[in-house]
């Protein structure tokens, strides 16, 4: 328990954790401000400018018709830019991918910094049971990234709810909040899994930069592999995790092809979990035997 407490304390003390949290919160707030501002636009004034520009002072094209390209468009009701609380599920899924990438980055830099500072050598003088150290660190990272995701998701839900109440539309379908609780829980789980994946890959790469390169490579290579062959469908770590966040499985017209070969939400969580467990065992074994500088 002492060790876990120390690891969590170390994790939360890291500057990158604080900076990342603040930057993402600022970006989110900025996005929300823009959404709120667009939600404010008065449709009737748009209609006024439409008629003014197009009907009172019309320009005509060669066929003698009013040139509508000169007009402002009347925005259809369905994309009138108004914030609808009922869209919160989609917003959570889309933003959740960003949260998960943040979790991966934070976890990778957290372990990468320990290799960089060689502080493990000092730490092992205090706790030489390396498997325990490795396991505790990974648990701390999972708890830490889950907590970061929870904070971000909570702020997102609060901001979105506030804005829809202020300038948007708050009507929601039945069972709306139950579903949103499940969404947030899924996001938090994905944050923890992303953190563990970042940790495990940095365990191999030993450096933050190398780990980030691996993730960028996965990002690019995985979809290529899915395209070339279906051999890797539901077998690679990153995109299943993304599918777990975006949850395309609830769509009525869902097909496994839309989710890189995974048929259900359970697939989308099992595949990354298997990867993470395997990577953690291998890196833990490696750490147990390695020479510490």
């Amino acid at each position, binding site marked *: 328990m002492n060790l876990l407490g120390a690891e969590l304390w170390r994790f939360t003390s890291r500057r990158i954790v604080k900076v990342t949290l603040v930057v993402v919160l600022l970006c989110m707030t900025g996005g929300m401000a823009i959404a709120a501002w667009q939600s404010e636009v008065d449709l009737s004034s748009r209609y006024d400018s439409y008629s003014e520009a197009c009907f009172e002072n019309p320009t005509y094209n060669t066929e003698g018709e009013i040139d509508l390209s000169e007009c402002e468009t009347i925005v259809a009701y369905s994309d009138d830019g108004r914030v609808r609380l009922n869209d919160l599920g989609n917003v959570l899924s889309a933003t959740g991918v960003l949260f998960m990438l943040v979790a991966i980055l934070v976890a990778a830099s957290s372990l990468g910094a320990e290799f960089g500072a060689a502080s493990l*050598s000092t730490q092992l003088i205090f706790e030489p049971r390396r498997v325990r150290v490795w396991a505790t660190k990974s648990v701390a990272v999972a708890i830490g990234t889950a907590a970061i995701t929870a904070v971000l998701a909570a702020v997102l839900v609060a901001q979105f709810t506030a804005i829809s109440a202020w300038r948007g539309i708050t009507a929601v379908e039945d069972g709306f909040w139950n579903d949103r609780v499940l969404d947030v829980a899924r996001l938090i789980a994905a944050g923890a899994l992303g953190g563990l994946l970042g940790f495990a890959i940095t365990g191999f790469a030993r450096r933050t930069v190398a780990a980030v390169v691996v993730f960028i490579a996965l990002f690019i290579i995985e979809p290529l592999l899915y395209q070339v062959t279906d051999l890797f469908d539901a077998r690679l770590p990153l995109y299943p995790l993304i599918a777990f966040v975006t949850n395309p499985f609830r769509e009525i017209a869902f097909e496994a092809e839309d989710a890189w070969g995974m048929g259900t939400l359970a697939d989308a969580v099992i595949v990354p979990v298997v990867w993470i467990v395997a990577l953690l065992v291998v890196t833990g074994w490696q750490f147990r035997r390695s020479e*510490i500088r």
Partner: protein
Amino acid sequence: MHAIEMSGLTKTYRARGGMVHAVAGLDLVVPVGGVHGFLGANGAGKTTSIRALVGHLRASSGEIRLLGARIPHELPTVIDRVGALVEQPSFFPNFTGRRNLALLAKSRGIPKSRVGAALATVGLTERADSRFATYSLGMKQRLGVAAVLLKDPEVLILDEPANGLDPPGILEMRNLLQRLGNEGRTVFVSSHILSEVQQTCDRVTVIARGRQITTGTVHELLATADAKFHVRVPGDQSERHVAATVLTNAGFEVLLDEKGELFVGVDAAHSDMVTKALADALIYVSLLAPVERSLEDVFLELTADPNASNGASPAGGAS
């Protein structure tokens, strides 16, 4: 039981140019209590054997015991009684010195009060709340020593702790080590600077090329070297040559160094025989002084590469 025991310790690295025998059959016994120096030139294998001792690497063969526990398997059973600083102290650069120590203390359930105490002992209280990255080399070294003190350990293992310290810092470190040794703790301290060790340690073990050369108290080691006296006589160079001849004829071992200074190999109990021999030849001695033998001289003699063509003779020069 001894504090530290190593027998037949070897560590071989596979390097690009072939095998590197960093430690090649090291035997070592460090009794409990006092300051024990671990001497060797750069690359002699000090750090490698210490890293094996604290479980940072696995020896290729041999046996290590720390407070009786077999290393590495039983290390966790004694780790709370052992503090160690291996090579450069490594901490988080963006955390303050205090936070770095507090994290280590927390990981082992050590009371927080010990952090402040350890910082005070090494004289780092004032800068304790600055980031580690802003520390000078000497301050980093002090923080490393403070981390060693956190556990209030019975055995302290310090790899070149005087590295990067300024002269007053070195003096403080020396006093600290002696105080810790006098408190009944075992201080095992490596160094390549012999004058350091001579003034601090009760016992020393000298290693070269990964093997033990000798071990014992500092006095014992100094006594193994032959005593030597510096002799001055009035007059010029030719007088000294005459004196040298007289002493050689009287059966003394005589050295004339490149500056023409005269040295006689004789122990203190018989140094009067030198004056007598010269006085008999009507040469009157103006100076007869024992040449201070430092551990360094002994060390250089002991570790001189046997393959080198001429063994360097440190204090006297050419004979």
